[in-house]
């Protein structure tokens, strides 16, 4: 049965049926029209028949006014086929007789005038009106139509069926085979030839044979073309895949647009960068991507137009993400030009340089900080370098000033005494300056102790009050429970005083200085001087003023040495540098907040102290007046500076010591080696040619492990006080050395000696 589902055959039958039906309907209509006319003609013939056969009888009856005869004749006429009504009107138009039933619908009426030739005159006797119905005609037409249509339908059905089978066997089944062959055609394999199930006329092939040959040639050609196309498609697909992979592998956002600047392709990096899914961007102009709408038009003029053949070039421009945020970019944008013809579109390769810009800013900032740190470090090194020599020089100046003052104690030469006092004062100032430099470079010797800052602050306020005008109030804001800090008390004084003096100078006439003390946790802040990140548990001692504030241009330079806004002679410019050095030497930091014309706050962040250092409570007592303090103890003094050894020799011999001064450390060692038990104490400089103080100490201790040794140093990077004590030195003295300090340390060293053997 599936063979008979041929659509073409069914269509053929359908068309035959339709066409045949139309023709049948037309011919049937024509036939009915002719039959209708014929029927009308027959009715009129009946009228004519009445005229020639009955009218004379009617005339006679009307002439004789024989109504019964008239009625009989009318009844006879009314029985004629199709005649339904006969009526006779007299000459006056009055109905005098009728037969049948009159109907107005579907009827034909014919009037017969009845006259009599009487005495050469035509005398009207009346009018016979005969009415015929067309109903019979219509019924006949219906019967005829039914017969014609039914017979035509049967004929059409039979003919169609016949044509269906003929067409199927001659054409449709072959077309079906061709369709099946073409459906199964797999162009990826070499196609088999199409053969139809029919006898082939080799000399005169029919249309199906020709079609078969054409299809076989066509499939062969298509197969060859398909092979080529498949190959090209594979190559193209590989290229597209590579291109797509390249686009997707690029971490920069890529936007490809047509010549109308409507986006046709984007990569994944685009979606990640801008926040737009590809579907949201495709089809839109690139205008929505620009942070500044004017850039869109500017780029149109400069780069993205079809009039100029602008190859992609690099430029920086800002874009806007979907979330509204703007980011800077480095974009490679321009026209896509195919075969040096007109541009086929535009491409933009967008690299987000937001982090690079930030990194550049941070790098610049770090470079500034590094520069600042390097500058501080250089100053520190410079300071350390010269401090030794300065201290040696100052040691001689101050030492001899002390000796001179000692010699002139009983002299009346007041003028000379004043000169020596001036020398001593200048030496002391120079000593302080060197000490500040060393403090800044964190190389100052200090005595660390556990300090409660509350009484320190009160003590300092008392000391400060004379230095601060009465128009400036000093307030405190001190938290009740604040941990102790590990600081040198003197240095702590120096820190607070330096900051308060600066606060005073920042206030023109009237103002308030507030000293805050609190314990707080500090997080995510940065030291204003060293720029290091600061976080942790700190005791904060802040000095706040409501003065002029600090100019933003110099706020980053306030910790630089010799940086001052004060008049010449009013400040050394070392105040905040010393603060920086002392604080950082104790792992502290400082924060600066300044408000233009509203004042500044310098907050010192000092780590709380958990260990309480042991203080050396040795006092010099009245050593300076005890002329027999030396008790003829033998001291070996080693220093490459002869003024120093001379000063020490003269000073100590004045106090009853026996002194052997040597300016070469190796000579001193030899001397000690020859008579190790001769000496009670060794005082040595650290920095000396040929052999340092520590090397000499080690060598002497090998000879006499119990002899006390005091280390003196103008400045040494290698050995500080702590190092010296750990090595076993009795004490450490920092040049220039005052008489008092020297005697105190000598006494401490000698007191530490083991008791002499009583036996």
């Amino acid at each position, binding site marked *: 049965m599936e063979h008979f589902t041929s659509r073409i055959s069914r269509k053929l039958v359908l068309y035959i049926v339709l066409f045949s039906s139309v023709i049948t309907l037309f011919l049937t209509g024509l036939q009915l029209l002719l039959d209708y006319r014929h029927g009308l003609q027959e009715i009129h013939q009946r009228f004519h028949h009445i005229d020639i056969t009955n009218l004379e009888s009617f005339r006679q009856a009307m*002439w*004789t*006014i*024989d109504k*019964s005869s008239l009625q009989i004749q009318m009844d006879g006429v009314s029985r004629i086929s199709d005649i339904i009504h006969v009526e006779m009107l007299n000459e006056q138009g009055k109905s005098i007789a009728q037969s049948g039933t009159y109907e107005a619908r579907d009827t034909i009426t014919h009037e017969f005038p009845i006259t009599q030739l*009487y*005495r050469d*005159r035509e*005398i009207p006797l009346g009018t016979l009106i005969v009415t015929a119905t067309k109903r019979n005609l219509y019924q006949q037409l219906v019967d005829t139509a039914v017969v014609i249509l039914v017979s035509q339908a049967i004929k059409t059905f039979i003919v169609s069926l016949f044509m269906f089978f003929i067409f199927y066997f001659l054409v449709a089944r072959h077309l079906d085979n061709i369709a099946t062959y073409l459906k199964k055609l797999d162009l990826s394999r070499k196609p088999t030839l199409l053969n139809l199930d029919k006898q082939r006329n080799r000399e005169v092939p029919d249309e199906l044979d020709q079609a078969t040959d054409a299809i076989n040639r066509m499939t062969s050609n298509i197969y060859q073309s398909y092979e080529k196309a498949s190959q090209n498609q594979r190559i193209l697909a590989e290229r597209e895949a590579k291109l797509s992979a390249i686009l997707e592998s690029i971490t920069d956002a890529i936007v490809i647009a047509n010549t109308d600047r409507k986006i046709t392709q984007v990569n994944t990096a685009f979606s990640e960068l801008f926040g737009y899914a590809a579907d949201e961007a495709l089809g839109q102009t690139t205008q929505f991507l620009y942070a500044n709408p004017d850039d869109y038009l500017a780029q149109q003029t400069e780069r993205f137009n079809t009039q100029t053949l602008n190859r992609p070039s690099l430029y920086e421009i800002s874009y806007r993400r979907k979330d509204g945020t703007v980011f800077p970019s480095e974009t490679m944008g321009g026209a896509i030009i195919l075969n040096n013809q007109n541009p086929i579109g535009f491409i933009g390769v967008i690299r987000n340089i937001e982090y690079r810009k930030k990194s550049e800013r941070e790098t610049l900032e770090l470079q500034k900080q590094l520069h600042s740190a390097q500058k501080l470090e250089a100053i520190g090194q410079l300071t350390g370098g010269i401090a030794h020599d300065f201290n040696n020089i100052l040691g001689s100046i101050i030492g001899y000033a002390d000796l001179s003052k000692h010699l002139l104690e009983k002299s009346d030469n007041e003028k000379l005494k004043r000169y020596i006092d001036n020398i001593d004062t200048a030496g002391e100032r120079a000593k302080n300056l060197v000490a500040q430099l060393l403090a800044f470079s964190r190389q100052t010797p200090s005595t660390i102790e556990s300090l409660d800052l509350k009484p320190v602050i009160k003590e300092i306020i008392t000391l400060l009050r004379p230095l601060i005008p009465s128009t400036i109030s000093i307030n405190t804001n001190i938290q009740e429970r604040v941990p102790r800090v590990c600081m040198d008390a003197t240095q702590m004084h120096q820190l607070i005083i330096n900051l308060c003096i600066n606060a005073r100078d920042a206030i023109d006439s009237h103002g308030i200085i507030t000293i805050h003390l609190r314990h707080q946790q500090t997080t995510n802040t940065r030291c204003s001087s060293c720029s290091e990140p600061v976080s942790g548990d700190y005791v904060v001692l802040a000095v706040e003023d409501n003065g002029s504030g600090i100019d933003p241009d110099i706020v980053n330079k306030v910790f630089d040495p010799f940086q001052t806004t004060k008049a010449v002679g009013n400040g050394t410019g070392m105040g905040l540098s010393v603060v920086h050095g002392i604080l950082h030497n104790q792992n502290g930091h400082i924060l600066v907040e300044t408000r233009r014309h509203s004042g500044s706050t310098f907050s010192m962040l000092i780590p709380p102290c958990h260990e309480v250092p042991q203080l050396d409570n040795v006092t010099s007592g009245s050593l300076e007046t005890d002329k027999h303090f030396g008790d003829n103890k033998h001291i070996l003094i080693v220093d490459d500076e002869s003024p120093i050894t001379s000063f020490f020799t003269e000073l100590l011999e004045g106090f009853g010591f026996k002194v052997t001064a040597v300016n070469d450390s190796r000579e001193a060692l030899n001397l000690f080696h020859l008579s190790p038990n001769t000496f009670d104490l060794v005082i040595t400089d650290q920095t000396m040619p040929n052999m340092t103080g520590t090397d000499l100490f080690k060598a002497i201790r090998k000879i006499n492990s119990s002899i006390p040794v005091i280390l003196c140093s103008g400045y040494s990077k290698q050995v500080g006080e702590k190092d010296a004590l750990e090595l076993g030195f009795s004490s450490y003295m920092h040049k220039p050395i005052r008489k008092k300090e020297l005697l105190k340390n000598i006494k401490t060293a000698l007191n530490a000696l083991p008791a002499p053997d009583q036996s």
Partner: protein
Amino acid sequence: MADINNTSFFRPIWLLLLPLLLATGALHAETRLHITTGFTPPVSDFFESVLGELDQLMPKVSITFEVLPAERSLILANQGINDGECCRIADVIQAEYGKLLPVESSFFSARFNAFGKIKRPINSFEDLKPYTVGSVEGWKIAVNKVNEINAKETHIVTTPEQLFQMIKENRLDYGVVGHLSGLQTIHSLNLSSEIHAIEPPLIEKELRLFLHEKHQYLIPAFNEAIQQLIQDGTIDRLYTQLLESL
């Protein structure tokens, strides 16, 4: 100008000749009258005879006579196609045919007698009530009376022959029909020995001659001529001749 002069020349001649021509025509004028009747023989024969006498008697009138179907005769006379109708009951005719004018003198009376095999004394239609009675279509005055009496049986037939055949066959006891028509039919059917006319007549009506109104001026002449024929015994003579022929 010549034509005008010619016309003016002949005008006085025409004015002299015209009265002469009119006077000559009037002297020799004769009115032709075609008078019809709806009666059939022998009555029509009687009428023809009387009209022949009138034609003779009236020198300025020329009468032709024709027998027509009864109603057609009236219609044609009323339409003026024919000139007169002979003869009808005056009061009946004048109602339907207004253009026919009667001549006052009557020369014939229509009589309807009962005819039967048995001569019983029948003096009115009521006397016929116990019997089966018939009549002939056409004479409405007789037919209506027969129908009115509500006789034992009533049969209205088409022709006098049918009526007398039915009497002969004893299907009717009596038939009411015109006297002359009955006698002629009995004679023609050879039933004179079996069927008799019973006297007196049940209906007797005078009939009048009618002329179309266009001939109204001739009515006095016809009246005078008919009076003359009645008075000189011509009418009776002609009627007697008719009865003798039946």
